[in-house]
């Protein structure tokens, strides 16, 4: 009796252990997010999973700085909502020495030396600048203006236009900042759908469902470039 009871219990446990796990189906990107180096080379990059990305905002003076910080926090919240497993966190820091990324208006004094390499420019009313090593294995640190790269951990320099023709509204400004943050997070290419934040000239200020799906897919691909 006891033997049969224990056997039955063991059998149920084995069956239960082989039950299907709660599962999220795999996704494919809504558009191609890779960095096109040339016609034959496409690279994926993203920050190590679980990383806190530190952002320093350059100082232009006036209320524009507050707007920029607000736009960064809004963009960070939007992109955080796009992912399911806190793959990244974004915080603002008070010193460029602590920063992984610099965001600044084009009228602010430069913080990093963008002449240190032949950088890659991605942009839409804003420009995301970064440098890749010759072997295409890593994104390099950008030297802070007036110092050596050894003191810097900055990997991306993002310039936002202050030209009212390019940035006519606050909504557009927030959209451009969120778009550039998409490049910083790893979406190197642009969507061809005008309803997406990663469209060349975005008309929205938060990631669309297609942007979110693309980022979720991207973050779980092996990164070709170390960050």
């Amino acid at each position, binding site marked *: 009796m006891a033997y049969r009871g224990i056997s039955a219990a063991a059998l149920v446990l084995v069956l*239960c252990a082989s039950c299907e796990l709660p599962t999220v189906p795999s996704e494919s990107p809504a558009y191609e997010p890779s960095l096109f180096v040339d016609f034959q080379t496409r690279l994926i990059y993203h920050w190590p999973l679980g990383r806190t990305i530190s952002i320093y905002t350059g100082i232009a003076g006036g209320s524009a700085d507050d707007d920029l910080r607000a736009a960064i926090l809004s963009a960070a919240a939007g992109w955080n909502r796009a992912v399911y497993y806190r793959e990244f966190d974004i915080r603002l820091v008070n010193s460029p020495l602590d920063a992984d990324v610099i965001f600044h208006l084009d009228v602010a004094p430069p913080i990093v030396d963008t002449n240190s390499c032949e950088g890659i420019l991605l942009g839409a009313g804003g420009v995301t600048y970064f440098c890749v090593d010759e072997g295409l294995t890593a994104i390099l640190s950008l030297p802070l203006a007036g110092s050596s790269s050894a003191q810097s951990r900055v990997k991306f320099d993002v310039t936002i236009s202050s030209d009212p023709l390019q940035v006519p509204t606050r909504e557009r400004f927030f959209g451009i900042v969120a778009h550039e943050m998409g490049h910083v997070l790893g979406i190197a290419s642009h969507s061809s759908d005008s309803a997406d934040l990663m469209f060349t000239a975005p008309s929205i200020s938060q990631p669309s469902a297609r942007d979110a799906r693309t980022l979720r897919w991207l973050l779980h691909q092996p990164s070709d470039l170390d960050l």
Partner: protein
Amino acid sequence: MAHSNRSTEIALAVVLTLASAPSASAQRSTRAPNWYAEAAVSIARPLVEDGNGTTVRPGISPVGGITAGWLTGVRTMVTVGLQGGAFSLRLEDGGDSWNGGNAWQVDIMGGVEYQIAGCAERSSRGCTSARGALGGTLLAGSDDVLPFRFGGGRLHPAGALGVTVRLLEKRALSANLLAHAFRLGGSGADNPISTSGTALQFRVGGRYGL
């Protein structure tokens, strides 16, 4: 979601009905419950697997609780128990691993224990009982991590199966080995866990009669 809650309600109703309507033999037994304190260590299977590569894995965690048991026959005891525990979550993808924050779990379970071996008397050392229970598991955790992102804090249908072995004659101290399972996912258009599945925890611990 509605279906999931409905199942939990039905399961709870069945168990509580059993507990509140003892058999004829139970009429002869004491109606006052025996109270037990339980403590265990829980080792769990992943909570969620993502087809894109992420696995949500609970850490080894302590679980504690209290159980009321009514003797309803020579070999049978009907139980109602409340257990709770906290655990950390690790998120894994390939070789990467990162912190998923903490989660909390409360189980409300009603069940039956039946003596299956070595029980010349209920207090005999080595007296082994099989346990089964049904009920619900309330799960909560960081709202930026699945499965808590979309409607965390829900009551999930749960079941448990295990054995209890009395360790001492003079004191009501027993060892417990329990598998606790609950259903997750598939409960809403927003919830990306579209394929529901079973989260499973193995609990090893002890129980002491109060």
